[in-house]
């Protein structure tokens, strides 16, 4: 048990614990905040695993954007600040399947890797990852740009019901208010 292992164990415990709170809490807003803790802990694990680029992207995109979006959504759907009683369905099937999935997967991974050790790769590989992305993985990168563009347009068109909702039939032009 090296220091790295202790660190990973601690961060893992934080991540799993806060994740349990995310899916267990009765406070909508707190769920979002616990999610931040969980994602942060995972980002910490990335750092330990010498994937600092992924770690920073995680912090920037997930904590910075996704969670903020989620919290916005919580607010926009007029969620109460206090505890809510109606967030959950009956839990047994979910607990059974979720627990089965998690523990089963864990057992498989434990079985596969046991208590082996591996060397940590050297830190500071952002440049090499960049090279990889822009040499071998340009194709999905470019395709992903289409995905992002369509997500952008899609989100706008859904959130703005006025787009295309009315139309001046005489001219065929759409009276849109952009």
């Amino acid at each position, binding site marked *: 048990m090296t220091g790295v292992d202790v660190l990973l164990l601690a961060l893992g415990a934080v991540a799993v614990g806060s994740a349990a709170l995310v899916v267990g809490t009765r406070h909508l807003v707190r769920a979002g905040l616990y999610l931040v803790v969980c994602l942060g802990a995972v980002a910490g694990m990335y750092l330990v695993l010498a994937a600092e680029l992924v770690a920073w992207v995680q912090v920037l995109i997930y904590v910075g954007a996704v969670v903020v979006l989620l919290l916005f959504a919580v607010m926009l759907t007029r969620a109460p600040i206090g505890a809510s009683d109606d967030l959950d369905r009956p839990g047994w099937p979910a607990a059974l399947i979720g627990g089965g999935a998690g523990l089963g*997967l864990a057992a*498989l*991974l434990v*079985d*596969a890797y046991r208590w082996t050790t591996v060397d940590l790769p050297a830190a500071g590989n952002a*440049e*090499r990852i960049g*090279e990889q992305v*822009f*040499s*071998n*993985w*340009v*194709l*999905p990168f470019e*395709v*992903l740009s*289409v*995905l992002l*563009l*369509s*997500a952008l*347009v*899609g*989100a*706008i*068109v*859904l959130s703005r*019901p006025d*787009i*295309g*909702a*009315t*139309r001046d*039939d005489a001219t*065929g*032009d*759409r009276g*849109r208010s952009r």
Partner: protein
Amino acid sequence: MSDSSLVQAVDHVALLPAYLAAGTAVLVLLVDLLVARPLATVVTAATGAVATAVGAAVVGSGAERRTFCVGPDCSYVFGGRAALVAALVALLVLGVLALSGPLLRAGNTPVGEYCFLLACSMTGGVVLGAAGDLITLIVAVEVLTLPLYVLVGLRRGSLASAEAAVTFFVVSVVATTLTLLGAALLYAVTGGLHLERLGTLLADEALLDLPLTTVAVTLVVAGLAFKVAAVPFHAWAPATYDGAPLPVAAYLSTASKLGGVIALLAVVRHALPSEVTGPLLAVVAALTMTVGNLVALRQRRTVRLLAWSSVAQAGYILAPLGALALTADADARTAAYAAALAYAVFFVLLELAAFAGVVALRPAGADGGSLDDLRGAARRHPWVGAGLAFALIGLAGLPPGLAGLFAKVTVVRSLLGGGAGWLALVVAINAVIGLAYYLRAAALLYAPAGEVTAPAVRPARAVAVALAVATVVALAVGFAPQIVLDLVGS
């Protein structure tokens, strides 16, 4: 690290269809912004779809082109089959655009965004057919699907549409996550991401015996089975199809389903060991067709009937892949992949025709309605009714819908060639169950109208043309199915 590694020789000719598709999307957005006339936007999108199809055909007619290669493994392999998929997706987009005419004219839908999203989805389909590694494959599947979340929810003011979008989104995201988990575990086990490399790595007995490998393969297959709406991952499909605008439902059950099939085919063919996928897919296929057919028997809403029937059809598509485990014969395997793809091609043709028929018989912008709304429709619109009846009969796999008949024949032949006689019998019995509801729907078209007098609407011209073209093509491949069989075999 030398600088040269950053500059990779990219075969832009191979990428031409993808460029055309993505270019269509951007162009549509620009035209919508600058010209701001719905007709111009639609025409741009349609032209782009045609250009993509032509581009795919031209590039595909040459030798296979590979690019983004690392050693022997390539991320993008554009051969005959990829060209077929790309051209098919582009043509389906064209067909769906034609079906969208009444919807867009009804004025509730933002034309530019609608066309843009369709074009984005088309880009995903084009790349998907050529994807050679897991990342590209999954990203392409997402590009194909993500615009559809939005399109499904685009029936303004309809609660069913909004609900359908949420259902589709949640299920689809979870499915993607399952696929991703499977891919991640595969990477953890093998260290490979390219499909063909995975195939060679997983041929190793030691890796294959690892339970983790089996779980990873199962997860990938299960995640993609969601996309083709195979039982037990099918519950979203009828609700989503029924809530979505009709042309989008047509797209979901043709191009989107085709995408799922192609993705599944790609991983099963190149990457995953058939010892694991074979039995899995055999069971899934048998369940899918049986459940889909039995539930379809009881549907009263047109689109739900088509949705459940398309669940059942997914079972027929997957069936040949289920026979893989039993045969070590390379020819039989190739025949099985070809049979699955051939069935998919015949199916999307007939399904598009069926949806075109339904769109033509319904008021502009309406949803699918109940089956009773179609009662006696063929007496009011003989040609449209005949087209719809032809498509339904074809889906049932009977003459005069020879395309559907040959599709079933192809599947049964490959199953018996692969030694899966029991699955062939399941397919056969299911064809009988399927006939019961297809025949009911088709006969309803010719039934006396009774007291229900639906308003006689003139079908939009674009829809009628789409129906006519789909029917004629289905008739043509019905008499010359060898064209399709040659294309999928190449």
